[in-house]
């Protein structure tokens, strides 16, 4: 490995990330196809509504497993909130101005921790559990409950995932390679995760 590069993710993490992303994209496209009559053509891509329903269900199973697999990679770091995390949050990660500096962050910054806990774990759990309810429930009460929360979680996902994609690509040059090559530059680590840089001894 080039001396100026730092290993950011393991091969397993990257594999699982793209498994999650792929199942998510399939679920969202079929989801929009089912939700809006005007977008029903999306389901035509998946072979019509009947097949799209089966694909949506089984992509949901892949999504469920993939979310479970992420727990080992990110849950431990995410539930530990430090004073630097609160600093990061109070300055909104320095995203709203050019002059604010990022408070030193560990391997995951406060935004990543919150995104993981609130979106991936919490909203993920809601959409997964209600997905299985809609798959198997027969009673009107359970179907209404599941239908409502499944759609609520859907709104959260389609609003937050585009932000996740933006923040990990265009908004932070040098970040995306963490999920492709698995490495980032030392300069990137010092810039965005100074506390982590100290922990792994590159500063």
């Amino acid at each position, binding site marked *: 490995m080039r001396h*100026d590069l730092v290993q950011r993710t393991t091969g397993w993490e990257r594999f699982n990330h793209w498994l999650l992303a792929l199942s998510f994209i399939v679920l969202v496209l079929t989801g*929009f*196809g*089912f*939700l*809006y*009559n005007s977008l*029903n053509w999306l389901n035509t891509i998946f072979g019509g*509504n*009947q097949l799209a*329903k089966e694909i949506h269900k089984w992509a949901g199973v892949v999504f469920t497993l993939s979310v479970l697999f992420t727990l080992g990679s990110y849950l431990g770091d995410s539930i530990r909130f430090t004073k630097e995390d609160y600093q990061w949050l109070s300055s909104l990660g*320095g*995203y*709203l*101005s*050019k002059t604010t500096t990022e408070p030193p962050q560990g391997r995951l910054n406060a935004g990543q921790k919150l995104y993981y806990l609130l979106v991936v774990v919490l909203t993920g759990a809601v959409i997964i559990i209600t997905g299985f309810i*809609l798959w198997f*429930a*027969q009673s*009107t009460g359970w*179907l*209404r*409950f599941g*239908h*409502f929360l499944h*759609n*609520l979680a*859907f*709104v*959260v996902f*389609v*609003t*937050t*995932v*585009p*932000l996740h994609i*933006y923040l990990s690509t*265009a*908004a*932070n*040059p*040098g970040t995306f390679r963490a999920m492709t090559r698995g490495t*980032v*530059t030392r*300069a*990137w680590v*010092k*810039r*965005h995760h100074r506390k982590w840089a100290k922990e792994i001894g590159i500063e």
Partner: protein
Amino acid sequence: MALSETEKRRLSGVDIQTRKKGVLVRPDLCIGCRGCQTACKEWNKLPGDRTVNRGTYENPPDLTPNLYNKIRFVEVEEGGHLRWLFISQRCMHCTEAGCMKVCPAPGALYRTPEGAVAFNKKKCIGCRFCLAGCPFNIPRYDAEEKISKCHLCADRLAFGLEPACTKTCPTGALTFGDRDELIQMAKASGFEAVYGEKDLGGLGVLYAFKEFPSFYGLPDSPGLPASVAFWKSILKPLALIGLGGAVAAAAAHYITVGPKEPEEGGEE
């Protein structure tokens, strides 16, 4: 054979386009003969359901995938006096149909030119969401997991015939006709309010009650289930607004504040 005025209107399509058809149910005229139940089964070629004797003539106990229209028997004791009442229970053909709102497979449920809510089993994907959307607990699922319910004999209406149930009814408890005429008819007969006149945008099946609707097992003021109404008016638009808003916010951030550029001399 000369056509009557009504038939001419019907064949010209004017009548169908401008006026919603409906059924007026008069429980006070129903004698519980269940002729409508049988006629419905005959026309729709629905097999009988195997049931057990429950000590009542009401049979089967509830709607099934093979029973689109059923006479519900209501027994009430009032001051030591038994009252035995009958009511036709079936799809109400709501104008604001909850089942159609939640159905994710366009064409599985559809509106006929006469205003009825009909179904196409070939397009139904068996998700059961229509059960969640229906305020009256009407849709049933058959052995192939496809929707089954009253379609107001859409295949008869298309040829200018009235539904099998109303055609059979010997007492006038079920009357088919133009919906607004049925409402006038009920009011002319002395009913102050007609159940379904305004509920859910107007029901296709109207009831002229002498008792409270709940007396017959119907909701007194029917409406879309709260979760379905909230989903339709808030969540559904919010999904598109949220997605569009997130993309727009990202783009706005990129061109105003801009990305976190690498520091000078730093390679990223």
